[in-house]
């Protein structure tokens, strides 16, 4: 406090970005005149090497102990200038940015006033920098193990990448097998490779990988801690079949008396209460559906157990809570499809021959309910005319989803094309608003369907679908001809969009991840941090953050894995020390801060009856400081007194 504050101000021209609206010469003159500063310098590009050198040399030559760089947003180059200052021997937290680009030159025209404003912003920043105390970054030890939540293609890829990088991974999946929605798909656009054929090798790789601990029928129930040190509780629900003993003989399903809908086949076929989701399921084991099985409390039936020669079945299995620590978490909880039951104009999903795109995937699949022969659900006949309705329940802010789900145009095109391959004399009609084919080889795929395979594309929305004899009458409009269109179809496939899965919603609450207005997880930055969440150490991959196709999902998974690996690679993490601190003399323990903290970083330490900040968790957002009704919380280097002084400097003439 006692040492004289020697402030150096460095003004950046940012080429013409700043200089064309701010009179740099005049600004420097004003700053010299009005404020108590040791030196004012300028450079064409402060972030360039010469600019940084100027900063370093001036710090040493003039013995500066406080530095202001008047340039762009602190989001851009604060780290640049802080490390430059550090190289010159100055504590990096004694460097502040005065934003005269985004907040001045880019938003004003009047050069004189802009220059005046820039000078005030610098004056205000001087009030901050002279109050700044040197800080040291926080050092936090790292648990070198990752948790991946969700066993679809995103989770599988992320787990494999992290494991291949040499770190242990726990992969948690709610259902009895990994594979996710991709395992339900027939072929994939635009290459038409069989989805299962490209997915199952990865599933097997997961099951074999020595570094991957796979937990199916499991859910994350609580997450505590922070980057590098998450403490996670996982509930492993009983599967009632011992994975290691089960030899997949299938004797049990033959005797099981309980018949229910098979969710893997979108309820288009039955399964038993003991079942294997699909033949290539990982782990390769049968499972008992405890909701419908008659053997679990009370024990009414034990037929499967009686025929199981390897004694794999155990009705007494109990849920198990597993507690583990992780350094990083990847959330890959995927999507659900928009329920066709919500779409009144298309029959509320009540008509058996109006089905969803995912239902149609199962009809197309060789291992589906019809063994890959297209049969309509109502009477099993092969449909001769199939209407594919794009944007069913999408791009309709008044009634349904407001957004475009990105993949539906392509999957409907694929559906129509595959249908034509299977039913040569069939007619496929696609009703579309726009055909969106932004992806590698997507446009070519669409052209092939429309031109070579004679799929009919009608530009217009379907207004209504009604039953007409044993057919469906599809009423719509062809907006290119400006005519009403009516088509009789044997089957209608609704290309429904993607919505956040239930698991995504649950995990967002559990991890305190923020969601966008549609309920998808919010990225830390939509462009520059697409796989990071706002919480450090928690990453997002795949459709949990919004609709994506498979290539994008897989690249996100690899991206998230790489991000996670950068955390796992270090023994210690450094964190910004500009965090909240509580003054216990005025704190009344009112709990307001605990409630407003979005990161769970504040708690009441019952032992000493004090509000305490978990340093590693605090992101320094300041929510608590603003809300604290006794004024007891301040962020380091952002005191109330300092903020007031900054405001005053801005308002003074």
């Amino acid at each position: 406090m006692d040492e004289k504050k020697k402030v150096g101000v460095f003004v950046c021209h940012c080429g013409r970005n700043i200089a064309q609206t701010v009179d740099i010469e005049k600004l420097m003159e004003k700053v010299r005149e009005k404020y108590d500063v040791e030196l004012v310098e300028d450079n064409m590009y402060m972030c360039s090497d010469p600019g940084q050198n100027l900063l370093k040399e001036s710090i040493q030559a003039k013995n500066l102990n406080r530095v202001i760089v008047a340039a762009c947003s602190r989001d851009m180059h604060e780290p640049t200038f802080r490390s430059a200052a550090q190289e010159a021997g100055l504590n990096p937290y004694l460097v502040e940015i005065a934003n005269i680009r985004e907040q001045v030159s880019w938003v004003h025209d009047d050069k004189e006033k802009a220059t005046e404003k820039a000078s005030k912003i610098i004056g205000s920043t001087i009030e901050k920098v002279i109050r700044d105390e040197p800080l040291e970054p926080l050092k936090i030890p790292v648990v070198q193990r990752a948790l991946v939540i969700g066993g679809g293609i995103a989770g599988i890829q992320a787990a494999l990448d992290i494991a291949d990088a040499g770190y242990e991974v726990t992969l948690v999946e709610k259902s009895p097998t990994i594979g996710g929605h991709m395992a339900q798909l027939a072929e994939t656009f635009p290459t038409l490779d069989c989805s299962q054929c490209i997915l199952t090798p990865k599933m097997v790789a997961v099951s074999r990988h020595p570094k991957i601990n796979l937990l199916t029928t499991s859910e994350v129930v609580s997450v505590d801690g922070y980057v590098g040190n998450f403490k996670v509780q996982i509930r492993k629900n009983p599967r009632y079949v011992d994975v290691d003993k089960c030899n997949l003989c299938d004797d049990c399903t033959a005797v099981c008396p309980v018949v229910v809908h098979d969710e893997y086949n979108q309820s288009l076929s039955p399964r038993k209460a003991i079942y294997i989701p699909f033949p290539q399921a990982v782990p390769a084991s049968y499972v008992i559906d405890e909701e419908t099985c008659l053997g679990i409390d009370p024990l009414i039936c034990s037929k499967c157990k009686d025929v199981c020669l390897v004694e794999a079945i155990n009705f007494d299995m109990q849920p198990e809570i597993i507690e583990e620590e992780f350094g990083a978490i990847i959330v890959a909880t995927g999507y659900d499809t928009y329920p066709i039951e919500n779409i009144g104009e298309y029959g509320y999903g009540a008509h058996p021959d109006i089905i969803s795109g995912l239902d149609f995937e199962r009809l197309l699949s060789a291992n589906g309910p019809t063994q890959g022969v297209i049969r309509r659900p109502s009477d099993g006949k092969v449909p001769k005319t199939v209407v594919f309705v794009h944007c069913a329940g999408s791009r309709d802010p008044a009634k349904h989803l407001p957004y475009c789900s990105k993949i539906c145009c392509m999957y409907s095109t694929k559906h129509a094309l595959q249908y034509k391959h299977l039913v040569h004399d069939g007619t496929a009609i696609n009703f579309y608003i726009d055909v969106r084919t932004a992806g590698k080889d997507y446009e070519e795929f669409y052209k092939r369907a429309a031109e070579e395979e004679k799929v009919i594309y009608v530009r217009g929305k379907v207004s209504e679908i009604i039953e007409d004899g044993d057919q469906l009458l599809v009423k719509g409009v062809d907006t290119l001809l400006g005519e009403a269109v009516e088509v009789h179809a044997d089957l209608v496939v609704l290309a429904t969009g993607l919505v956040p899965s239930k698991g995504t919603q649950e995990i967002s609450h559990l991890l305190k991840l923020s969601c966008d207005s549609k309920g998808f997880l919010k990225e830390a930055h939509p462009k520059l941090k697409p796989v990071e969440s706002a919480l450090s150490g928690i990453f997002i991959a795949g459709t949990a953050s919004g609709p994506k196709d498979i290539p994008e999902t897989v690249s996100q998974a690899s991206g998230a894995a790489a991000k996670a690996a950068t955390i796992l690679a270090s023994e210690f993490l450094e964190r910004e020390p500009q965090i909240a601190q509580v003054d216990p003399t005025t704190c009344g323990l009112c709990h307001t801060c605990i409630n407003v903290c979005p990161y769970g970083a504040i708690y009441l330490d019952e032992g000493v009856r004090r509000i305490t900040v978990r340093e590693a968790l605090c992101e320094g957002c300041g929510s608590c400081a603003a809300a604290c009704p006794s004024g007891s919380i301040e962020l380091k280097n952002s005191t109330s007194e300092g903020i007031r002084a900054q405001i005053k400097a801005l308002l003074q003439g």
Partner: protein
Amino acid sequence: MNKLKVAVALGATCAGCDVAILDLNEKILDVIEIVDFVFWPTAMDFKLDDLKALKDGEVDVGLYHGAIGTEEDEEIAKILRKKSKIVVAFGACANFGGIPSLTNMPYESKMFDVVYKESPSTSNPEGTLPQKETEIEGTKLTLPGIRKRADSLNSVIDVDYYVPGCPPMVPLIEQVVDVLRVFVEKGTLPPKGAVIAGQDTLCKECGRTKPETISYKEFVSPQEVKEIDPDLCLLSQGILCLGPATRSGCGALCTKMNVGCRGCLGPTDKVDDHGLKMISALTSLLEVEHEEEYTEEDFDKLLEKIPDPLGTFYRFTYGVSMISKLHPDKEE
């Protein structure tokens, strides 16, 4: 032992502060042991001339309660300052302007209209308003003029110590007596500017338990609640309570009676604007769990349930609030 010479002067006050001193009951005897009241017009027969007659600095401790509402209040405060070694702002009005300072909201002329013409219980067909001077049958009568603002004591004179509260509660007055006794016996005093009350906030002495999340769907008056949980934080039951933002020291008198804290001890040392801090905390907590589901209109509806927000959040501190500065006196 020399007794301390104490003067109790008053401004815009309800005289509740005087009663509060008498509320010491038998302890008043301890006070009399160490104190000689040289001026206390509410309790004894004193006139302002008695105070004026004292030598400058002759009074050891001058207590002042009430806001500076009239020109006379200001004059008395200045005389008290001149005559006293130590001046104590006693009670919410002297500390923060108190309830009288809520009149700073409408401007003088308007305030007169509200009080002397428009209030439902007033019959004033001639529209007579208070005059500084009036002549009746050849005699000139005068009244002290009303200031444009009712202010805290420290806005007109230098104040040494502060005792907040409306009125200051017995435990606080006992603390004052202790301070005086130490002064008499050892000659030592607390640092200048000290507030004789708690340092932290009411929540700490309230004793009600805080639920895991404090989040309320609506605000209710205590009488609207069928049964108030006597052990649970009032805010979490939807009852507006300024406790989180209000200095401790009262012993949680109100919340013990299922009444939300009204904020009469003012904010902590760290806070300038009591009401603003409470609004900030309250709105931060408002439906904190369902924030994203709410529209601005939904929030407005919730907030509409707060009767008279200004009078609620600034009941005692409007005079020293930042928000009161947003009302420049345009009607000059």
